[in-house]
Protein backbone atom coordinates (compact mmCIF):
# COMPACT_ATOMS: atom_id res chain seq x y z
CA UNK A 1 0.00 0.00 0.00
CA UNK A 2 1.16 3.52 -0.79
CA UNK A 3 -0.93 5.30 1.83
CA UNK A 4 -2.23 3.57 4.93
CA UNK A 5 -4.37 5.33 7.51
CA UNK A 6 -5.27 3.36 10.61
CA UNK A 7 -7.63 4.52 13.38
CA UNK A 8 -6.98 8.21 12.79
CA UNK A 9 -8.44 10.73 15.20
CA UNK A 10 -8.13 14.31 14.02
CA UNK A 11 -9.61 17.52 15.31
CA UNK A 12 -9.40 21.10 16.42
CA UNK A 13 -9.51 22.02 20.08
CA UNK A 14 -11.26 19.57 22.35
CA UNK A 15 -13.68 18.13 19.85
CA UNK A 16 -12.25 15.67 17.33
CA UNK A 17 -13.76 16.13 13.88
CA UNK A 18 -12.66 12.75 12.55
CA UNK A 19 -12.98 9.54 14.59
CA UNK A 20 -11.21 6.24 14.17
CA UNK A 21 -10.86 6.50 10.41
CA UNK A 22 -8.96 3.84 8.48
CA UNK A 23 -8.45 3.68 4.73
CA UNK A 24 -5.86 2.84 2.07
CA UNK A 25 -4.74 4.23 -1.23
CA UNK A 26 -2.65 2.07 -3.51
CA UNK A 27 -0.34 3.26 -6.27
CA UNK A 28 -2.20 3.97 -9.52
CA UNK A 29 -5.57 4.23 -7.81
CA UNK A 30 -8.20 6.92 -7.56
CA UNK A 31 -9.81 6.68 -4.15
CA UNK A 32 -12.77 8.96 -3.42
CA UNK A 33 -14.01 9.95 -0.01
CA UNK A 34 -17.55 11.20 -0.27
CA UNK A 35 -19.83 12.59 2.35
CA UNK A 36 -22.02 15.54 3.24
CA UNK A 37 -20.85 19.02 4.17
CA UNK A 38 -19.31 19.05 7.63
CA UNK A 39 -18.55 15.32 7.71
CA UNK A 40 -14.86 16.03 8.26
CA UNK A 41 -13.60 15.47 4.73
CA UNK A 42 -11.41 18.57 4.57
CA UNK A 43 -10.09 17.91 8.09
CA UNK A 44 -9.13 14.42 7.01
CA UNK A 45 -7.39 15.44 3.79
CA UNK A 46 -5.57 18.31 5.51
CA UNK A 47 -4.17 15.82 8.00
CA UNK A 48 -2.99 13.57 5.16
CA UNK A 49 -1.29 16.62 3.62
CA UNK A 50 0.44 17.46 6.91
CA UNK A 51 -1.47 20.69 7.55
CA UNK A 52 -3.02 19.21 10.68
CA UNK A 53 -1.63 16.85 13.27
CA UNK A 54 -3.35 13.54 13.91
CA UNK A 55 -4.14 13.14 17.60
CA UNK A 56 -4.11 9.41 17.49
CA UNK A 57 -3.65 6.59 15.03
CA UNK A 58 -1.18 5.60 12.37
CA UNK A 59 -0.46 7.28 9.07
CA UNK A 60 2.02 5.54 6.80
CA UNK A 61 3.13 6.66 3.39
CA UNK A 62 5.27 4.22 1.44
CA UNK A 63 6.23 2.62 4.74
CA UNK A 64 7.27 5.88 6.44
CA UNK A 65 5.53 6.91 9.66
CA UNK A 66 4.09 10.29 8.70
CA UNK A 67 2.88 11.23 12.17
CA UNK A 68 6.47 12.08 13.07
CA UNK A 69 7.17 14.11 9.94
CA UNK A 70 7.18 17.92 10.10
CA UNK A 71 4.54 19.73 8.01
CA UNK A 72 7.01 21.10 5.46
CA UNK A 73 8.53 17.64 4.89
CA UNK A 74 5.33 15.96 3.69
CA UNK A 75 5.96 17.24 0.19
CA UNK A 76 9.43 15.69 0.20
CA UNK A 77 7.81 12.29 0.70
CA UNK A 78 5.73 12.79 -2.44
CA UNK A 79 2.41 14.14 -1.13
CA UNK A 80 0.90 17.18 -2.87
CA UNK A 81 -2.36 18.93 -2.02
CA UNK A 82 -4.86 20.73 -4.25
CA UNK A 83 -6.63 22.51 -1.39
CA UNK A 84 -10.26 23.45 -1.02
CA UNK A 85 -10.88 26.91 -2.43
CA UNK A 86 -7.59 26.59 -4.36
CA UNK A 87 -5.62 28.82 -1.99
CA UNK A 88 -3.33 30.24 -4.64
CA UNK A 89 -0.74 32.90 -3.88
CA UNK A 90 -3.00 35.51 -5.46
CA UNK A 91 -0.52 38.38 -5.71
CA UNK A 92 2.13 36.23 -7.35
CA UNK A 93 2.10 35.38 -11.04
CA UNK A 94 0.76 32.12 -12.42
CA UNK A 95 4.28 30.92 -13.16
CA UNK A 96 5.51 31.85 -9.69
CA UNK A 97 2.65 29.81 -8.21
CA UNK A 98 3.72 26.85 -10.32
CA UNK A 99 7.35 27.36 -9.32
CA UNK A 100 6.38 27.20 -5.66
CA UNK A 101 5.21 23.68 -6.43
CA UNK A 102 8.76 22.69 -7.36
CA UNK A 103 10.36 24.48 -4.40
CA UNK A 104 12.12 21.36 -3.12
CA UNK A 105 15.42 20.51 -4.78
CA UNK A 106 14.41 17.20 -6.38
CA UNK A 107 11.42 18.78 -8.12
CA UNK A 108 13.33 22.00 -8.79
CA UNK A 109 15.84 20.22 -11.00
CA UNK A 110 12.91 19.11 -13.20
CA UNK A 111 11.39 22.60 -13.35
CA UNK A 112 11.53 23.12 -17.14
CA UNK A 113 10.09 19.70 -17.99
CA UNK A 114 7.39 20.03 -15.32
CA UNK A 115 6.38 23.48 -16.60
CA UNK A 116 6.11 22.09 -20.14
CA UNK A 117 3.92 19.29 -18.88
CA UNK A 118 1.61 21.62 -16.94
CA UNK A 119 1.36 24.08 -19.85
CA UNK A 120 0.66 21.09 -22.12
CA UNK A 121 -2.19 20.07 -19.83
CA UNK A 122 -3.50 23.64 -19.49
CA UNK A 123 -2.42 25.67 -22.56
CA UNK A 124 -4.32 28.76 -21.34
CA UNK A 125 -1.94 29.03 -18.38
CA UNK A 126 1.02 29.54 -20.73
CA UNK A 127 -0.66 32.68 -22.10
CA UNK A 128 -1.45 33.93 -18.61
CA UNK A 129 1.81 32.97 -16.96
CA UNK A 130 2.85 36.53 -16.12
CA UNK A 131 -0.56 37.52 -14.69
CA UNK A 132 -1.26 37.61 -10.97
CA UNK A 133 -3.02 34.34 -10.14
CA UNK A 134 -5.78 36.22 -8.29
CA UNK A 135 -6.96 37.82 -11.55
CA UNK A 136 -7.78 34.50 -13.21
CA UNK A 137 -11.26 32.97 -13.48
CA UNK A 138 -12.27 30.25 -11.05
CA UNK A 139 -11.63 27.45 -13.52
CA UNK A 140 -8.23 28.82 -14.48
CA UNK A 141 -7.32 29.19 -10.81
CA UNK A 142 -8.20 25.56 -10.28
CA UNK A 143 -5.86 24.70 -13.16
CA UNK A 144 -3.06 26.61 -11.43
CA UNK A 145 -3.77 24.79 -8.17
CA UNK A 146 -3.58 21.41 -9.93
CA UNK A 147 -0.50 22.50 -11.89
CA UNK A 148 1.21 23.62 -8.70
CA UNK A 149 0.65 20.16 -7.23
CA UNK A 150 1.97 18.42 -10.37
CA UNK A 151 5.12 20.58 -10.32
CA UNK A 152 6.05 18.83 -7.09
CA UNK A 153 6.26 15.50 -8.96
CA UNK A 154 4.07 13.86 -6.34
CA UNK A 155 3.40 10.17 -5.86
CA UNK A 156 -0.06 10.99 -4.55
CA UNK A 157 -2.20 14.04 -5.28
CA UNK A 158 -4.84 15.01 -2.73
CA UNK A 159 -7.81 16.81 -4.28
CA UNK A 160 -10.10 18.64 -1.88
CA UNK A 161 -13.45 19.54 -3.48
CA UNK A 162 -11.99 20.35 -6.91
CA UNK A 163 -15.44 20.99 -8.40
CA UNK A 164 -16.52 23.50 -5.77
CA UNK A 165 -17.72 26.79 -7.27
CA UNK A 166 -16.95 25.85 -10.87
CA UNK A 167 -19.26 25.96 -13.90
CA UNK A 168 -20.66 22.50 -14.82
CA UNK A 169 -18.74 22.28 -18.12
CA UNK A 170 -15.47 23.04 -16.35
CA UNK A 171 -16.29 20.47 -13.66
CA UNK A 172 -16.25 17.75 -16.33
CA UNK A 173 -12.82 18.96 -17.53
CA UNK A 174 -11.48 18.85 -13.98
CA UNK A 175 -12.53 15.25 -13.50
CA UNK A 176 -10.94 14.34 -16.85
CA UNK A 177 -7.72 15.93 -15.60
CA UNK A 178 -7.86 13.93 -12.37
CA UNK A 179 -8.07 10.72 -14.41
CA UNK A 180 -5.07 11.87 -16.47
CA UNK A 181 -3.10 12.57 -13.31
CA UNK A 182 -3.73 8.98 -12.27
CA UNK A 183 -2.91 7.65 -15.74
CA UNK A 184 0.38 9.57 -15.65
CA UNK A 185 1.39 7.53 -12.63
CA UNK A 186 0.34 9.32 -9.43
CA UNK A 187 -2.20 7.94 -7.00
CA UNK A 188 -5.20 10.17 -6.28
CA UNK A 189 -7.15 10.74 -3.10
CA UNK A 190 -10.27 12.73 -3.92
CA UNK A 191 -12.65 14.32 -1.47
CA UNK A 192 -15.92 15.46 -3.02
CA UNK A 193 -19.49 16.48 -2.38
CA UNK A 194 -20.31 15.85 -6.02
CA UNK A 195 -20.98 12.18 -5.31
CA UNK A 196 -21.90 10.95 -8.78
CA UNK A 197 -18.85 12.53 -10.38
CA UNK A 198 -16.54 11.37 -7.64
CA UNK A 199 -17.80 7.81 -7.90
CA UNK A 200 -17.70 7.78 -11.71
CA UNK A 201 -13.91 8.12 -11.82
CA UNK A 202 -13.01 6.30 -8.59
CA UNK A 203 -11.53 2.83 -8.32
CA UNK A 204 -12.70 2.60 -4.72
CA UNK A 205 -14.60 4.89 -2.41
CA UNK A 206 -15.26 5.50 1.26
CA UNK A 207 -18.29 7.25 2.72
CA UNK A 208 -17.54 9.61 5.59
CA UNK A 209 -20.43 10.78 7.77
CA UNK A 210 -20.13 12.74 11.01
CA UNK A 211 -16.44 12.04 11.21
CA UNK A 212 -16.63 8.28 10.73
CA UNK A 213 -16.31 5.98 7.76
CA UNK A 214 -19.73 4.33 7.44
CA UNK A 215 -19.20 2.21 4.38
CA UNK A 216 -16.69 1.44 1.66
CA UNK A 217 -16.53 -0.41 -1.62
CA UNK A 218 -16.29 -0.10 -5.36
CA UNK A 219 -18.37 2.68 -6.90
CA UNK A 220 -20.94 0.42 -8.57
CA UNK A 221 -21.47 -1.48 -5.30
CA UNK A 222 -21.92 1.75 -3.37
CA UNK A 223 -24.39 3.07 -5.92
CA UNK A 224 -26.60 0.03 -5.26
CA UNK A 225 -26.79 0.63 -1.50
CA UNK A 226 -30.17 2.07 -0.47
CA UNK A 227 -28.60 4.46 2.04
CA UNK A 228 -26.31 5.99 -0.59
CA UNK A 229 -29.13 6.25 -3.12
CA UNK A 230 -31.37 7.97 -0.62
CA UNK A 231 -28.89 10.30 1.07
CA UNK A 232 -26.77 11.35 -1.90
CA UNK A 233 -28.69 10.72 -5.08
CA UNK A 234 -32.18 11.51 -3.85
CA UNK A 235 -33.75 8.39 -5.33
Amino acid at each position, binding site marked *: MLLEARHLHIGYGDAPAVWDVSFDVDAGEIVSIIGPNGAGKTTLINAI*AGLLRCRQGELRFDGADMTRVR*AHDYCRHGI*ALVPEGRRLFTKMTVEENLELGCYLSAARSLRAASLDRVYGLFPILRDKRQQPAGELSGGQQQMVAIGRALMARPRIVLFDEPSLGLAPTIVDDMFDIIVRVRDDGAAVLLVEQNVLKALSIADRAYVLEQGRIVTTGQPDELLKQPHIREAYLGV
Partner: protein
Amino acid sequence: MPSATLLGQALISGVLAGGMYGLLALGLSLSWGLLRLVNLSHFALAFLAAYLTYEMGTTYHIDPWWSVLVIVPAMFVIGLLQHWVFDRFKVNELASLLITFSFAVILEVAIQLYWTADYRRFETHYSTLSIKVGAFYIPVLELILCLVAGVLAWGTWLWLRKTYVGKALRASAEDAEIAAAYGVDHKKLAYLLSGLGAAYAGVAGTFIALIATLAPAQIWAWLGVVFAVVIIGRLGNPLGALFAGMLIGASESIAMAVLSPAWAPVVSFSVLIVLLLWDPDWS
Protein backbone atom coordinates in the same frame (compact mmCIF):
# COMPACT_ATOMS: atom_id res chain seq x y z
CA MET B 1 8.41 82.38 -3.53
CA PRO B 2 12.01 81.16 -3.32
CA SER B 3 14.29 81.14 -6.35
CA ALA B 4 14.63 78.22 -8.74
CA THR B 5 18.12 77.54 -7.43
CA LEU B 6 16.87 77.32 -3.88
CA LEU B 7 14.02 75.03 -4.90
CA GLY B 8 16.38 72.84 -6.89
CA GLN B 9 18.77 72.64 -3.98
CA ALA B 10 15.86 71.80 -1.65
CA LEU B 11 14.78 69.05 -4.02
CA ILE B 12 18.28 67.54 -4.16
CA SER B 13 18.80 67.73 -0.40
CA GLY B 14 15.34 66.33 0.18
CA VAL B 15 15.77 63.34 -2.11
CA LEU B 16 19.15 62.60 -0.55
CA ALA B 17 17.79 62.94 2.98
CA GLY B 18 14.91 60.71 1.89
CA GLY B 19 17.47 58.01 1.15
CA MET B 20 17.87 57.66 4.93
CA TYR B 21 14.10 57.27 5.35
CA GLY B 22 14.16 54.65 2.64
CA LEU B 23 17.09 52.79 4.18
CA LEU B 24 15.41 52.74 7.60
CA ALA B 25 12.08 51.76 6.04
CA LEU B 26 13.63 48.84 4.16
CA GLY B 27 14.10 46.46 7.11
CA LEU B 28 10.84 47.55 8.72
CA SER B 29 8.89 46.97 5.52
CA LEU B 30 10.35 43.48 5.03
CA SER B 31 9.50 42.17 8.49
CA TRP B 32 6.10 43.85 8.53
CA GLY B 33 5.11 42.81 5.04
CA LEU B 34 6.55 39.31 4.92
CA LEU B 35 6.56 38.16 8.55
CA ARG B 36 3.66 40.24 9.91
CA LEU B 37 5.94 41.53 12.66
CA VAL B 38 6.00 45.29 13.23
CA ASN B 39 9.44 45.96 14.59
CA LEU B 40 9.43 49.21 16.55
CA SER B 41 12.91 48.42 17.84
CA HIS B 42 14.29 48.73 14.31
CA PHE B 43 15.19 52.37 15.03
CA ALA B 44 16.77 51.48 18.35
CA LEU B 45 18.90 48.86 16.60
CA ALA B 46 19.95 51.45 14.03
CA PHE B 47 20.96 53.82 16.82
CA LEU B 48 22.79 51.07 18.67
CA ALA B 49 24.76 50.53 15.46
CA ALA B 50 25.31 54.28 15.18
CA TYR B 51 26.65 54.50 18.74
CA LEU B 52 28.88 51.50 18.12
CA THR B 53 30.22 53.21 15.00
CA TYR B 54 30.78 56.36 17.04
CA GLU B 55 32.50 54.41 19.84
CA MET B 56 34.79 52.51 17.51
CA GLY B 57 35.58 55.67 15.61
CA THR B 58 36.28 57.99 18.53
CA THR B 59 37.74 55.61 21.14
CA TYR B 60 39.56 53.11 18.95
CA HIS B 61 39.98 55.26 15.82
CA ILE B 62 38.51 52.63 13.56
CA ASP B 63 37.22 54.08 10.34
CA PRO B 64 33.45 53.55 9.82
CA TRP B 65 34.14 51.81 6.51
CA TRP B 66 35.88 49.11 8.55
CA SER B 67 33.67 49.07 11.63
CA VAL B 68 30.63 48.52 9.44
CA LEU B 69 32.09 45.11 8.54
CA VAL B 70 31.82 44.09 12.18
CA ILE B 71 28.64 45.94 13.09
CA VAL B 72 26.45 44.64 10.29
CA PRO B 73 27.10 40.94 11.01
CA ALA B 74 26.66 41.65 14.73
CA MET B 75 23.30 43.26 13.99
CA PHE B 76 22.36 40.22 11.89
CA VAL B 77 22.97 38.04 14.96
CA ILE B 78 20.93 40.41 17.14
CA GLY B 79 18.13 40.09 14.58
CA LEU B 80 18.29 36.30 14.92
CA LEU B 81 18.13 36.54 18.71
CA GLN B 82 15.21 38.91 18.50
CA HIS B 83 13.42 36.53 16.19
CA TRP B 84 14.05 33.71 18.62
CA VAL B 85 11.88 35.63 21.10
CA PHE B 86 9.15 36.10 18.47
CA ASP B 87 9.35 32.42 17.61
CA ARG B 88 9.53 31.14 21.18
CA PHE B 89 6.46 33.08 22.30
CA LYS B 90 4.55 32.78 19.01
CA VAL B 91 4.25 36.54 18.72
CA ASN B 92 1.54 37.89 16.38
CA GLU B 93 1.30 41.23 14.61
CA LEU B 94 -0.24 43.17 17.50
CA ALA B 95 1.91 41.61 20.20
CA SER B 96 5.01 42.36 18.12
CA LEU B 97 4.25 46.09 18.50
CA LEU B 98 4.24 45.80 22.28
CA ILE B 99 7.25 43.55 22.53
CA THR B 100 9.44 45.51 20.13
CA PHE B 101 8.36 48.74 21.84
CA SER B 102 9.74 47.31 25.06
CA PHE B 103 12.90 46.19 23.24
CA ALA B 104 13.29 49.75 22.01
CA VAL B 105 12.84 51.21 25.49
CA ILE B 106 15.37 48.77 26.94
CA LEU B 107 17.86 49.62 24.21
CA GLU B 108 17.26 53.34 24.72
CA VAL B 109 17.97 53.01 28.44
CA ALA B 110 21.03 50.86 27.81
CA ILE B 111 22.39 53.41 25.35
CA GLN B 112 21.69 56.20 27.83
CA LEU B 113 23.48 54.31 30.64
CA TYR B 114 26.60 53.76 28.60
CA TRP B 115 26.82 56.86 26.43
CA THR B 116 24.73 59.22 28.67
CA ALA B 117 21.96 61.47 27.38
CA ASP B 118 24.48 64.01 26.03
CA TYR B 119 24.52 64.80 22.35
CA ARG B 120 27.32 63.00 20.56
CA ARG B 121 28.75 64.00 17.25
CA PHE B 122 31.13 61.80 15.28
CA GLU B 123 33.38 64.30 13.50
CA THR B 124 35.20 63.13 10.41
CA HIS B 125 37.20 65.13 7.92
CA TYR B 126 34.78 64.14 5.16
CA SER B 127 31.52 64.75 7.00
CA THR B 128 30.90 68.10 5.30
CA LEU B 129 32.37 67.22 1.92
CA SER B 130 30.23 68.09 -1.05
CA ILE B 131 30.54 68.28 -4.81
CA LYS B 132 29.30 71.22 -6.81
CA VAL B 133 27.23 70.49 -9.88
CA GLY B 134 26.24 73.67 -11.66
CA ALA B 135 24.56 75.87 -9.08
CA PHE B 136 23.87 72.98 -6.71
CA TYR B 137 25.80 71.36 -3.89
CA ILE B 138 25.57 67.62 -3.40
CA PRO B 139 26.74 66.33 0.00
CA VAL B 140 28.98 63.32 -0.59
CA LEU B 141 28.00 61.23 2.44
CA GLU B 142 24.32 61.52 1.66
CA LEU B 143 24.99 60.64 -1.95
CA ILE B 144 26.86 57.50 -0.86
CA LEU B 145 24.01 56.69 1.52
CA CYS B 146 21.52 56.92 -1.33
CA LEU B 147 23.66 54.72 -3.56
CA VAL B 148 23.97 52.11 -0.79
CA ALA B 149 20.22 52.30 -0.07
CA GLY B 150 19.55 51.96 -3.80
CA VAL B 151 21.78 48.90 -4.15
CA LEU B 152 20.25 47.24 -1.07
CA ALA B 153 16.67 48.00 -2.12
CA TRP B 154 17.25 46.89 -5.70
CA GLY B 155 19.13 43.77 -4.61
CA THR B 156 16.45 42.83 -2.09
CA TRP B 157 13.76 43.41 -4.69
CA LEU B 158 15.52 41.10 -7.12
CA TRP B 159 16.10 38.54 -4.38
CA LEU B 160 12.37 38.48 -3.56
CA ARG B 161 11.36 38.31 -7.26
CA LYS B 162 13.91 35.97 -8.76
CA THR B 163 15.06 33.43 -6.19
CA TYR B 164 13.17 30.48 -4.82
CA VAL B 165 13.79 31.69 -1.26
CA GLY B 166 12.34 35.10 -2.13
CA LYS B 167 9.29 33.58 -3.79
CA ALA B 168 8.84 31.24 -0.83
CA LEU B 169 8.88 34.23 1.54
CA ARG B 170 6.24 36.05 -0.51
CA ALA B 171 4.13 32.91 -0.75
CA SER B 172 4.39 32.28 2.99
CA ALA B 173 3.30 35.85 3.69
CA GLU B 174 0.04 35.10 1.89
CA ASP B 175 -0.61 31.50 2.97
CA ALA B 176 2.04 29.97 5.22
CA GLU B 177 0.19 26.67 5.56
CA ILE B 178 0.04 25.97 1.84
CA ALA B 179 3.62 27.16 1.30
CA ALA B 180 4.66 24.65 3.97
CA ALA B 181 2.69 21.94 2.18
CA TYR B 182 5.04 22.53 -0.78
CA GLY B 183 8.13 22.24 1.38
CA VAL B 184 8.75 25.83 2.53
CA ASP B 185 10.31 25.83 5.98
CA HIS B 186 8.93 29.21 6.93
CA LYS B 187 10.53 29.23 10.35
CA LYS B 188 14.03 29.04 8.89
CA LEU B 189 13.30 31.72 6.30
CA ALA B 190 11.78 33.98 8.96
CA TYR B 191 15.03 33.85 10.93
CA LEU B 192 16.96 34.75 7.81
CA LEU B 193 14.70 37.69 7.06
CA SER B 194 14.77 38.98 10.65
CA GLY B 195 18.55 38.84 10.61
CA LEU B 196 18.60 40.65 7.30
CA GLY B 197 16.27 43.39 8.58
CA ALA B 198 18.51 43.99 11.59
CA ALA B 199 21.59 44.01 9.33
CA TYR B 200 19.93 46.77 7.28
CA ALA B 201 19.41 48.67 10.53
CA GLY B 202 23.17 48.26 11.06
CA VAL B 203 23.91 49.80 7.66
CA ALA B 204 21.51 52.67 8.40
CA GLY B 205 23.16 53.13 11.81
CA THR B 206 26.60 53.59 10.28
CA PHE B 207 25.27 56.44 8.17
CA ILE B 208 23.31 57.90 11.09
CA ALA B 209 26.59 58.10 13.02
CA LEU B 210 28.23 59.95 10.14
CA ILE B 211 25.40 62.31 9.27
CA ALA B 212 23.36 62.97 12.40
CA THR B 213 23.91 64.07 15.98
CA LEU B 214 23.34 61.18 18.35
CA ALA B 215 21.16 61.23 21.46
CA PRO B 216 19.27 58.29 22.99
CA ALA B 217 15.86 59.94 22.58
CA GLN B 218 16.54 60.37 18.86
CA ILE B 219 15.47 56.72 18.54
CA TRP B 220 11.91 57.95 18.33
CA ALA B 221 12.54 60.94 16.07
CA TRP B 222 12.06 59.11 12.77
CA LEU B 223 9.37 56.70 13.88
CA GLY B 224 6.38 58.54 12.43
CA VAL B 225 7.85 59.53 9.13
CA VAL B 226 9.42 56.13 8.46
CA PHE B 227 6.12 54.40 9.27
CA ALA B 228 4.45 56.62 6.71
CA VAL B 229 7.19 55.72 4.24
CA VAL B 230 6.73 51.98 4.84
CA ILE B 231 2.99 52.22 4.21
CA ILE B 232 3.30 54.48 1.16
CA GLY B 233 5.92 52.14 -0.31
CA ARG B 234 3.62 49.14 0.25
CA LEU B 235 4.49 46.56 2.90
CA GLY B 236 7.18 44.12 1.89
CA ASN B 237 8.20 46.11 -1.19
CA PRO B 238 11.87 47.20 -0.90
CA LEU B 239 11.92 49.45 -3.97
CA GLY B 240 8.64 51.02 -2.87
CA ALA B 241 10.19 51.81 0.51
CA LEU B 242 13.13 53.57 -1.14
CA PHE B 243 11.05 55.60 -3.59
CA ALA B 244 8.55 56.52 -0.89
CA GLY B 245 11.44 57.63 1.33
CA MET B 246 12.74 59.91 -1.39
CA LEU B 247 9.26 61.22 -2.15
CA ILE B 248 8.70 62.14 1.49
CA GLY B 249 12.21 63.56 1.85
CA ALA B 250 11.72 65.77 -1.19
CA SER B 251 8.24 66.89 -0.09
CA GLU B 252 9.49 67.81 3.37
CA SER B 253 12.44 69.71 2.01
CA ILE B 254 10.36 71.67 -0.47
CA ALA B 255 7.76 72.45 2.19
CA MET B 256 10.56 73.79 4.38
CA ALA B 257 11.88 75.98 1.57
CA VAL B 258 8.52 77.28 0.36
CA LEU B 259 6.61 77.53 3.64
CA SER B 260 8.67 77.21 6.78
CA PRO B 261 10.64 74.46 8.55
CA ALA B 262 7.78 74.01 10.99
CA TRP B 263 5.73 72.53 8.17
CA ALA B 264 8.01 69.56 7.58
CA PRO B 265 6.43 67.14 10.07
CA VAL B 266 2.98 67.75 8.59
CA VAL B 267 4.12 66.76 5.13
CA SER B 268 4.74 63.04 5.49
CA PHE B 269 1.37 62.25 6.97
CA SER B 270 -0.42 64.59 4.56
CA VAL B 271 1.19 62.71 1.68
CA LEU B 272 0.25 59.43 3.35
CA ILE B 273 -3.39 60.45 3.75
CA VAL B 274 -3.62 61.75 0.19
CA LEU B 275 -2.11 58.56 -1.20
CA LEU B 276 -4.34 56.33 0.93
CA LEU B 277 -7.43 58.21 -0.28
CA TRP B 278 -6.27 58.35 -3.87
CA ASP B 279 -4.99 54.75 -3.81
CA PRO B 280 -2.96 54.77 -7.02
CA ASP B 281 -2.26 51.36 -8.50
CA TRP B 282 1.53 51.26 -8.29
CA SER B 283 2.29 47.87 -6.89
